[in-house]
């Protein structure tokens, strides 16, 4: 029987890791990821898990050790954040390019300088092109459930691509909620042990991560793209299977919330989706036709979904907790590209940087701006909201 517990998203994710039973965890502590890896250490100390936790001396080594273990066919996990993610960036590429199915959590945090330990998405978005599947969780429950789904996606023979599960720093990682912890037997039925032929093996030795020159490198990259495209159906399939087994449906790559007859929709990820959900309900009470589009999978990007709604909404806004300086919010760029040809008004709202709250008032302001455009008003396409002046 599953049980309920009052957990932070970090602790919930740690339970997800415990239940997924990786052989190897290698991690280096960094705020706000620490309570996750501490919880894993607790499980081991309490005899609740027999994970081999390698205490590495840096994030680069954390990913390198996970990479090495994964080459041998072990199920592996690591977690990091911010500067740590940047420090392991080189190994992120090694992992994805070698196609080893590592699962990691990134506790989304601002990047220095100016030094800041609080939440935003500039760390993870800077690794957009590292070749990882990038999923965003909205709650502690989704964090736990997403870890289990992540392994099933990553280890699929057609996919073989590492997965980064993103949790908003503090807003999720350190916020407590009631989380249902599934039974080990249930999880085992959903997620069997990792078996693969693509590994270093005593009986069938291999060369892995070899050099490829101009004659084959493009084909290696095209293979990665094929796997990423295939991951779209896989993410949906795994989400559906999870819903059937555990009764919690996360709708695959994208969740539409009250979008059926919506005129105006706001695109959200992570914890912002939770707040937006509340505001959508409030505005619906007032008779406003609003909805939310929650992106769960940023890589692969649900291009097909956004293309399918180019005629659906009068205005679409995108919440970004990161910006590509000199361009636009990172998610907005992608949404805009996927909605090419749409007559819908588009707005991009840069908020929640360095831990500033993505408040209910801000979300309301976004909807106001979108309605203003629908009613003929002019708005700057990309706006920082909630600036002090």
């Amino acid at each position, binding site marked *: 029987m599953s049980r309920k517990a009052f957990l932070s998203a970090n602790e919930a994710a740690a339970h997800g890791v415990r239940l997924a039973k990786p*052989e*190897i965890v290698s991690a280096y502590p960094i705020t706000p990821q620490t309570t996750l890896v501490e919880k894993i250490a607790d499980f081991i100390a309490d005899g609740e898990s027999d994970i081999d936790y390698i205490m590495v001396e840096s994030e680069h*080594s954390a990913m*390198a050790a996970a*990479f090495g273990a994964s*080459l041998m066919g072990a199920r592996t996990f690591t977690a990091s954040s911010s500067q740590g993610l940047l420090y392991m960036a080189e190994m992120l590429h090694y992992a994805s390019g070698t196609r080893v199915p590592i699962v990691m959590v990134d506790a989304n945090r601002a990047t220095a300088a100016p030094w800041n330990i609080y939440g935003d998405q500039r760390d993870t978005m800077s690794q957009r092109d590292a070749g990882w599947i990038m999923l965003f969780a909205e709650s502690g429950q989704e964090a736990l459930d997403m870890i289990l789904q992540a392994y099933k996606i990553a280890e699929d023979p057609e996919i073989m691509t590492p997965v980064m599960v993103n949790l908003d720093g503090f807003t999720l990682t350190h916020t407590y909620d009631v989380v249902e912890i599934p039974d080990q037997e249930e999880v085992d039925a959903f997620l069997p042990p990792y078996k693969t032929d693509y590994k270093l093996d005593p009986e069938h030795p291999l060369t892995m991560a070899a*050099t490829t*020159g101009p004659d084959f490198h493009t084909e290696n990259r095209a293979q990665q793209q094929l796997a990423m495209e295939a991951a779209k159906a896989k993410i949906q399939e795994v989400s559906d299977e999870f819903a059937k087994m555990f009764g919690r449906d996360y709708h695959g790559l994208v969740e539409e919330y009250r979008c059926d007859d919506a005129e105006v929709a706001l695109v959200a990820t992570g914890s912002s989706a939770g707040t937006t959900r509340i505001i959508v309900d409030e505005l619906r009470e007032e008779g406003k036709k609003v909805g939310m589009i929650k992106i769960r999978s940023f890589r692969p990007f649900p291009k097909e979904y956004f293309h399918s709604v180019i005629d659906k909404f009068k205005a679409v806004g995108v919440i970004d907790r990161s910006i590509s300086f000199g361009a636009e919010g990172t998610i907005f760029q992608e949404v805009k590209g996927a909605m090419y040809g749409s007559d819908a008004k588009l707005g991009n709202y840069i908020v929640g940087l360095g831990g500033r709250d993505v408040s209910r008032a801000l979300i309301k302001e976004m909807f106001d701006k979108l309605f203003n455009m629908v009613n003929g008003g002019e708005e700057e396409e990309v706006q920082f909201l909630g600036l002090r002046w």
Partner: protein
Amino acid sequence: MAINLKTVDDKELLYGTKICQGCGAGMAARMALKVLGEKTVLCTPACCFAATTTVFPQSSIFVNNAISAFPGLAATASGMTHAMKALGWDDDYTMLAIAGDGGTIDIGLQGLSGAAERNDDLIYICYDNEAYMNTGVQRSGSTPFDAWTTTTPTGPCSKGEKNKFRKSLFEIMSAHRIPYVATASVAYPQDYMAKVAKAKEIKGCRVIHVSAPCPTGWGYDTAKTVELAKMAVESGLWYLAENEGGEMKLTYKPKELKDPADYLKMQKRFKHLTEEDIQEIREIRDAEWERLKKVLSFE
């Protein structure tokens, strides 16, 4: 364990590589694999060794192997050896990491320190060709004093490498109190291979630092690799030592140190040296030898 060359396994586990003619690194890796055998898993960074062995579709390594990033080699090997145990591989498999001097004592040192501190069960061999050779002979923390490299060029304002002392990997790793540390040279295969054989029988983190001349980077006739490596040892510019469980000793003592001048004059990287410069190198060598006598307790 004495090494009898007549009975050393004939089977090649490294073959058909694209190493330069006379490559010392190739010698070092081949000799090690001869001792360790087929039950070896090999990991290298993207160094000379990787670039000359595993460019698709070629794979000149005959055992399980993988490439990792320069700063990530030791940690990758740690992950591999931990996974070998977690997945129940036979106990007699050896996790072997091979990297150059740059990949080890410069960019790779932090990761190696971590692996050593954890005493992870692996053998780490550093083949030392005294510069970053794969990228085209740039200086490393192991480049000797006055040596020309492409980043320590000689000219009116430069005599080459400025640091008088190379980083001592032997002493750095000894300070980690791992069970086995050794220095070796490709010119002394029985000494080197006996050290690899000894390391193979020990559990934990074992590090061997082997001198491996590079004809391309040093500028000498490809036939002279072993001759030069021998002269380095005979003239006290390199030494053969080991540290087994804290017991440090020299494993080969030249009867009388030869003049480094002959060694230096054989290489283009030192061709700019004057007699005065060579005298300075003699003095540095003498001081270093006196220091080694204390570290390694020999007379």
